[in-house]
């Protein structure tokens, strides 16, 4: 069950599932859980995201996103980053192996005490999503050929 919620959160973040709208009645359990976990959070706003709710907020001058299940459990925390915010091994690997691609999306995701990074790389023909679970290497999460005009 937890895995399913995680997968749903990931698909929302990667943009493969659709968001609902901003007009959300905040899930009370999620809000309580959020206030406990992120006591220093500022500029908090909530969105409905599929079967979950998503909090967008600022913490230590970073914009973060927290995803909660309907039962108020924290599923994942993410933040968008730039390549130079990646651990050295991962950014070096991108420079070495994907020099001909550009980065169109990159985020850090913490779920269940584990940190993963997801990067979307594109060139004229392809779009590749890579995932890192170990701070040291990338694996292909998704690969698609771009439609020809």
């Amino acid at each position, binding site marked *: 069950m937890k895995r399913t919620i995680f997968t749903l959160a990931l698909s929302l973040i990667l943009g493969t599932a659709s968001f609902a709208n901003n007009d959300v009645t905040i899930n009370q359990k999620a809000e309580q859980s959020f206030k406990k976990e992120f006591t220093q959070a500022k500029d908090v706003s909530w969105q409905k995201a599929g079967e979950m709710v998503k909090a967008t907020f600022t913490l*230590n001058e*970073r914009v*973060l996103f927290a995803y909660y299940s309907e039962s108020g459990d924290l599923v994942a*925390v993410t*933040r968008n980053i730039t390549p*130079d*915010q990646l*651990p*050295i*091994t991962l950014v070096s690997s991108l*420079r070495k192996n994907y020099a001909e691609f550009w980065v169109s999306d990159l985020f*850090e995701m*913490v779920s269940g*005490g584990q*940190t993963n990074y997801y990067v979307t790389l594109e060139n004229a023909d392809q779009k590749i999503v890579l995932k890192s679970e*170990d*701070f*040291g290497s990338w694996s292909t999460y998704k690969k698609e050929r771009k439609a020809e005009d």
Partner: protein
Amino acid sequence: MKKLFVSAALALAVVTSSFAGDMVKVDKKIQSAFQKEFASAFNPRWESVGDGVYHVTFTQNSEVMDAYYNDDAELISIARYVNQDQLPLLVTKTLNQKFSGSEITQIRELVTENETSYLVTAKNDNGIVIARVFTSGGFQIVKKIKNGKA
């Protein structure tokens, strides 16, 4: 034996960040391994730091980096300076918990045996603490220096 090299590299990363030793002639196989790994490295400077460990400081992609090799030409550690914005979320969370009220003066990212960790130097009214923070958020004090003591 490999553990010994890693400990030596860690100790060096804690104690010194700048190039301290005399220039040394480094074995070709070590230089070759370095050039293969860091093809775009600029201005490498080598020193021997004992226990069969060689330290090279260089610039790559506008960053000053350090690498440590053993005499079998194996890369045993890489280090670079990072700022707080480059830290993973779990590391930041640990620093906020452990060093609230302290000033973080230096952070070095360290990769040893494929494990990434962060050496954080923080100071407060009592002195200086150097801690190693792991990507899981785990925390280990490496060194404490009280004010007035070397």
